[in-house]
């Protein structure tokens, strides 16, 4: 059962009634029960991995807290009788090895499970040719299935352990509450990847019923469903048609395929996020925004600050910052004083950290080389932009380009969109070989052909009208969002106008949405 079905909506409504009927201090129990039931209904029978994650978090964070308490007690006991240095030494001892081992343990166990379940076969596939080269027998594939959402809840859980380690968060001692944090159903399968200090207190707190939350929550769910059913699910067959026939396709058609795929994935993923955020709002829980009109970005770096925000900010906080101030980066800056210029020494830590982040981003998405290429491709563009920044600045001065002029901004937005779309060529194929075939044909057989067969092969007129209707509405909403929140804007309108908008959306979803049970299905990002 996915969140874009009527069955989910009906179950969700029942859960909301139960949630608000329950006494406030027990509301989190209702949420936990509902989460586990939904997790099961979404097709997961094996709760073992989720339980391992929960147990490791409870033990490690509890132990870390205990060490911190002991340190504080020692400091309190010796208050006034020790020097500043001794105080520092006690603190360092507290923060030191034991706590490091605990957080390291959480990371190794949870990342280990993720690596074995999701990436095990990928490693085997890549190691086998080497083994065979040396005359050894290849390894068999692991018969393990990664549970739904493992990529998301693993990162969320590691983030929690790191927050406690850094002393930015108080650990939760109740294992069932930790289990709720790990399995909170709306976000479990596709994020947003929540942060413990923001999300957990809201999950555990009691909430009064609020009509405002109910109304705004359902508005958001409706909008998410519209994006999924009318835009994403109509674009999917077009994208599949284009890339399935890549072997004989014109490069121009493949380029159009990249553009449609970019729009499809955005409508699909942001539609899911809207549903999740709407569902949470009805419970009175405000979740992290995952998108901020990413296609209005003027550079790829800006795009990544506005697309899948919860993931990019996770990588920023837990990989980029630690990597850029890591010993290796600092030592390079120190050692290379005589060999490298100040600029290179300044850039090196950033480039090193970005390289790691983008490799991880690609690898996180899927256990395949095509996604690694895609991640690295993004990294190459972003790093190149940083390295070549002075040259670009000079070129703009020579050409008298004003950065705040409307045409340059428009050009920047268009350029960024095309780069994003072109990078989508890597995950476009079902396999890495296919993706490389698509890349080859895209660049070697590119002949602009402005015919319907070349631009939108296999699409009926009515399907194009649906997609155009959906995209125009999407654009209008995005434009309104740049000035003010859309739901506030809608709330300021009379009742009749508001309900006409709802009716148009509902009629759009039911009338134009894809409901053929063979086509409609899960969300693209659920596979990651």
């Amino acid at each position, binding site marked *: 059962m996915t969140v874009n079905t009527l069955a989910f909506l009906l179950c969700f409504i029942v859960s909301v009634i139960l949630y608000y009927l329950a006494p406030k201090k027990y509301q989190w129990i209702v949420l936990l029960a509902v989460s586990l039931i939904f997790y099961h209904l979404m097709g997961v029978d094996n709760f073992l991995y989720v339980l391992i994650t929960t147990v490791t978090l409870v033990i490690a964070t509890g132990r870390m807290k205990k060490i911190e308490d002991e340190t504080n007690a020692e400091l309190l006991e010796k208050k006034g009788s020790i020097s500043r240095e001794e105080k520092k030494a006690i603190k360092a001892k507290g923060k030191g090895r034991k706590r490091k081992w605990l957080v390291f343990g959480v990371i190794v166990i949870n990342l280990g499970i993720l690596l074995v379940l999701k990436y095990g076969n990928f490693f085997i596939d890549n190691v086998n040719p080497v083994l065979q080269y040396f005359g050894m027998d290849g390894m068999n594939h692991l018969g393990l299935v990664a549970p739904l959402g493992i990529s998301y809840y693993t990162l969320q859980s590691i983030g929690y352990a790191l927050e406690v380690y850094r002393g930015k968060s108080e650990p939760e001692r109740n294992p069932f509450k930790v289990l709720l944090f790990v399995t909170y159903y709306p976000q479990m399968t596709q994020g947003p990847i929540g942060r413990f200090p923001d999300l957990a207190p809201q999950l555990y707190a009691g909430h009064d*019923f609020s009509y405002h939350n109910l109304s705004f929550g359902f508005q958001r769910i409706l909008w998410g469903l519209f994006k999924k059913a009318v835009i994403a699910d109509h674009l999917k067959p077009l994208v599949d048609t284009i890339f399935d026939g890549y072997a004989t396709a014109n490069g121009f058609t493949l380029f159009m395929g990249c553009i449609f795929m970019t729009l499809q994935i955005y409508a699909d993923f942001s539609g899911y996020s809207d549903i999740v955020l709407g569902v949470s709002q009805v419970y009175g829980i405000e979740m992290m925004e995952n998108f901020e009109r990413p296609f209005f970005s003027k550079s790829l770096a800006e795009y990544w600050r506005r697309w899948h925000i919860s993931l990019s900010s996770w990588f920023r906080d837990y990989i980029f910052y630690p990597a850029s101030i890591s010993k290796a980066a600092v030592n390079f800056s120190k050692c290379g004083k005589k060999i490298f210029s100040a600029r290179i020494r300044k850039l090196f830590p950033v480039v090193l950290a970005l390289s790691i982040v983008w490799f991880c981003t690609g690898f996180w998405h899927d256990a395949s080389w095509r996604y690694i290429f895609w991640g690295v491709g993004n990294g190459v563009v972003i790093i190149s932009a940083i390295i070549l920044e002075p040259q670009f600045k000079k070129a703009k001065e020579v050409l008298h380009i004003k950065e705040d002029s409307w045409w340059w901004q428009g050009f920047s937005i268009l350029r960024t969109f095309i780069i994003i779309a072109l990078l989508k060529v890597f995950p476009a194929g079902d396999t890495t070989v296919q993706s490389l075939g698509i890349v080859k044909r895209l660049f070697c057989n590119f002949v602009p052909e402005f015919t319907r067969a070349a631009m939108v092969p296999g699409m009926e007129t009515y399907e194009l009208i649906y997609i155009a209707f959906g995209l125009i509405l999407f654009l209008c909403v995005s434009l309104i969002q740049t000035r003010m929140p859309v739901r506030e804007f809608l709330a300021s309108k009379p009742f009749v106008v508001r309900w006409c908008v709802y009716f148009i959306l509902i009629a759009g979803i039911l*009338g134009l949405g894809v409901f*053929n049970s063979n086509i409609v299905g899960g969300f693209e990002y659920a596979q990651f």
Partner: protein
Amino acid sequence: MRNFRKILLRVLLLGAFLMVFNKAVRFVYEEPNQNVIYTRSDLKKSNGEVETLILGTSLMHWGVNGQVLGEVLDSPTFNLATSSQPMDGTYYLLKDQIKHNPLKRVFLGVHVTVMQNDTNSNINLRRGIFDRIQSPLGKLEYMFKTAEPKEYESYLFYSTRVDNVMTWEVAKSNVKYKLSDDYRNNKSPENSRYTYQTMGDENTEKIYDGSFSVEKLRKSTVWNRKRLLEINTTHLQKIADICKKNGVELNLVIPPMTWEYTKHAGDLDDMHNYFQEFCDENDANLYDFTYYDGIYDIFPNEYFQDKKHLNARGAVKFAELIGETYLEDHEEQ
């Protein structure tokens, strides 16, 4: 309390919109040559009257003229058989009809394909049953028992079944027809393959040309006890149970078919024995016309529209035959 009233008002408003929207889309897009429109309307009109019900697949739908059977039996009769009717669908239709009508007897068509085909997996056939179930609770029960969660939308909202919303020509001709007297009088449009009559009966004048292809026969058309599907046998039993519980007489009917088809249908003696045993165990009657004396003389090819389905003439004749046989049988008893 204020919030509750506010929410209730909005829920009602939403419900009303969905109802109106659904009706409007049905009006514009539900094609009149799918005679289900008339069946539904007649079902509603005949509530509280029907004593004899015809159920089963196309063999009964086109093969028995319900009105003629009703006249012979002197009992209001409705033909609620549909093409490839899934056996579980038959059960839920019967359950629904028992609530709405003073049913006395049911004529259920059975044959090889009825027991061996997995028609339950066809969503269009299941939605056809959903449309013919009248009570909202019956509809919901049927939906929850037979549909996957992702199929709920297409059961409940007709709009989710319309593939081509922008085909204005279809919409235009539909609306034009539905505003005409023909529609009000349940008269099928001229382009219909089958002509609707009344109380679920529809038929065709088409005559079978004798062209029969053995290659087209599938495994499911040859009787084999091992191939009976559990979902079909279970629901056949449920049908017998619900009939017994509600004092409705169950009559299993094996309709006549062309000789060319029958001779390739496998061990029909075994099929007869299977259904006879079932009837004996469940106080039901079996009317097997496969080996009825001189059946191929009574029903030559002129009475068929294809190798196994009777045409309009055949349906009248078969209705008379069932009715008379039934009466004779009951007089003897």
